């Protein structure tokens, strides 16, 4: 097949990717968008097989069969609660693929000849390796193979700076002296360590941002891979993914009132004067029981459920759905208030609740639900903390001041389901817990909700 036809097919594929991403941004067209994008991928792969530079097919067939089988098994077996891990891993594989392509091209005497190709190889090695190791740390944190808490690395910022500068230095050395093969090994090693250290200090609650960012990196790595051989479809699709990933990262940062820089370098907002938790809570926290809350719910006309990170951790989404059904059967209106960063990755809570068959119309976005809290009888907060902290609205000195929150404190009664009074990832006490209209229901999220449902059923 001539190069002209191949490149025209690449153009078709790139167009399908654009239509695909566009489709994925609207609920009505999302399924079709994903199919168009898959069709584009199919076309790009098939025409590449006719490229005259491909001389043998053994390795290709073996690789596609093996990768296809692993990918298909992963996609069908994975639990919806584990979706963030899955995406983290796929990001890592994407970055890893680009890394190995760069290495293969470096060893290929006909490929790594001119300066542009060498610069692209060095860049791909750095971005690909950072994406690979960074994604695996993210995966390990989400899978709880290692602690999800921020891990302090002494001199983190300086160390990362040194690693980044060494990586760029090594990259330049490779371009100047491509015959020295040890340089590329050193570059791989330095970049892998850099990826590791970039993600290790980041806490579990910042994971939505990290996954979005690594997604962007895997796209950029594909784009730089395209520059090695001047492959247009790689450049276009890679940069599309890279750019859209950055935008999604920004949306996440805004929702958490964090700057991208701070998340990247593991900097937490410094609290000016530390607020004493005992002072906030002393004698003002009212503890409650499932029976008591059930009595409140019996007479409630309108209940808003506020699910958070903790609900995903406790895998309590089905239990919550059950509680909602019981309330609805009694004629109570039930809605869910979804904060933009609820869950462990962007939009994760929506997927979790969709899996538990919560009707889509009951999931209400923050801006829409906030004015409605005043007409709400009971707000049930499950596993959410910082996103309900009124200090973000009222206390100008607070590190989280300005973060958009759900105004649950405006509801007539707030029920907070939580293990203890321990702070959220911002490390701050939450005055919400001490309000007169707040009731604390201490315990494991899932167990508490099941008991609550039981009590409500028995009330009849």
């Amino acid at each position, binding site marked *: 097949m001539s190069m002209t036809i191949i490149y025209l097919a690449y153009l078709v594929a790139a167009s399908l990717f654009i239509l695909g991403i566009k489709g994925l941004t609207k609920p009505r067209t999302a399924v079709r968008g994903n199919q168009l*994008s898959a069709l584009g991928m199919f076309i790009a792969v098939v025409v590449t097989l006719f490229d005259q530079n491909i001389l043998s097919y053994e390795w290709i067939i073996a690789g596609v069969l093996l990768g296809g089988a692993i990918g298909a098994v992963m996609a069908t077996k994975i639990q919806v609660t584990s979706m963030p891990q899955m995406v983290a891993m796929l990001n890592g594989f994407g970055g890893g693929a680009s890394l190995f392509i760069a290495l293969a091209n470096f060893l290929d005497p006909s490929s790594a000849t001119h300066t542009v190709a060498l610069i692209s190889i060095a860049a791909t090695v750095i971005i690909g390796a950072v994406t690979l190791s960074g994604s695996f740390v993210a995966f390990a944190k989400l899978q709880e193979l290692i602690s999800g808490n921020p891990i302090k690395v002494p001199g983190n910022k300086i160390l990362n700076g040194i690693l980044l500068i060494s990586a760029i230095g090594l990259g330049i050395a490779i371009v100047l002296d491509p015959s020295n093969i040890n340089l590329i090994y050193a570059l791989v090693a330095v970049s892998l360590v850099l990826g590791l250290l970039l993600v290790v200090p980041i806490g579990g609650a910042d994971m939505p941002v990290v996954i979005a960012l690594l997604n962007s990196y895997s796209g950029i790595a594909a784009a730089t891979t395209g520059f*090695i051989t001047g492959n247009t479809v790689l450049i*276009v699709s890679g940069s599309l993914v890279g750019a*859209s990933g950055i935008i999604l990262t920004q949306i996440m940062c805004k929702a958490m009132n964090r700057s991208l820089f701070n998340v990247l370098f593991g900097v937490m907002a410094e609290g000016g004067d530390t607020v004493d938790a005992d002072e906030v809570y002393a004698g003002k926290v009212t503890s409650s029981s499932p029976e008591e809350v059930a009595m409140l719910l019996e007479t409630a006309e309108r209940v808003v459920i506020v699910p958070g990170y903790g609900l995903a951790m406790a895998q309590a989404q089905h239990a919550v759905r059950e509680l909602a059904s019981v309330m609805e059967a009694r004629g109570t209106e039930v809605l869910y208030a979804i904060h933009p960063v609820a869950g462990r990755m962007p939009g994760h809570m929506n997927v979790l609740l969709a899996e538990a068959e919560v009707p889509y119309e009951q999931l209400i976005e923050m801006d829409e639900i906030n004015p409605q809290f005043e007409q709400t009888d009971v707000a049930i907060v499950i596993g959410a903390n910082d996103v309900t902290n009124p200090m973000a609205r009222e206390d100008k000195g607070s590190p989280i001041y300005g973060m958009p929150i759900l105004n649950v404190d405006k509801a007539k009664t707030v029920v907070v389901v939580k293990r203890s009074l321990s702070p959220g990832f911002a490390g701050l006490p939450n005055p919400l817990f001490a309000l007169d209209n707040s009731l604390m229901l201490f315990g494991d999220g899932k167990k508490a909700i099941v008991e609550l449902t039981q009590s409500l059923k028995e009330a009849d």
Partner: protein
Amino acid sequence: MEILLLITLFVVAVFLGVEMITKVPPTLHTPLMSGSNAISGISLVGALLSAGSGAGIWVNVLGFIAVVLATINVVGGYMVTNRMLAMFKRK
């Protein structure tokens, strides 16, 4: 000259990517991410060229590893996105 064309392509595609993702409902953030992640598996094209090239066994082996990783990315990405979207659809 060719490199300038490629850079032009790159920059235009970046702007396009930024412009496309403006108002996405939060419900679609996860599928959008896994779906665009599947697209970054386009590096499979580069992997195929290395795995099938006549440049020696090591180039082929590295290419093979890249093909495996990229195919997991592509197949896993599209399938899991489809699975999630199907969950939204049945309502």
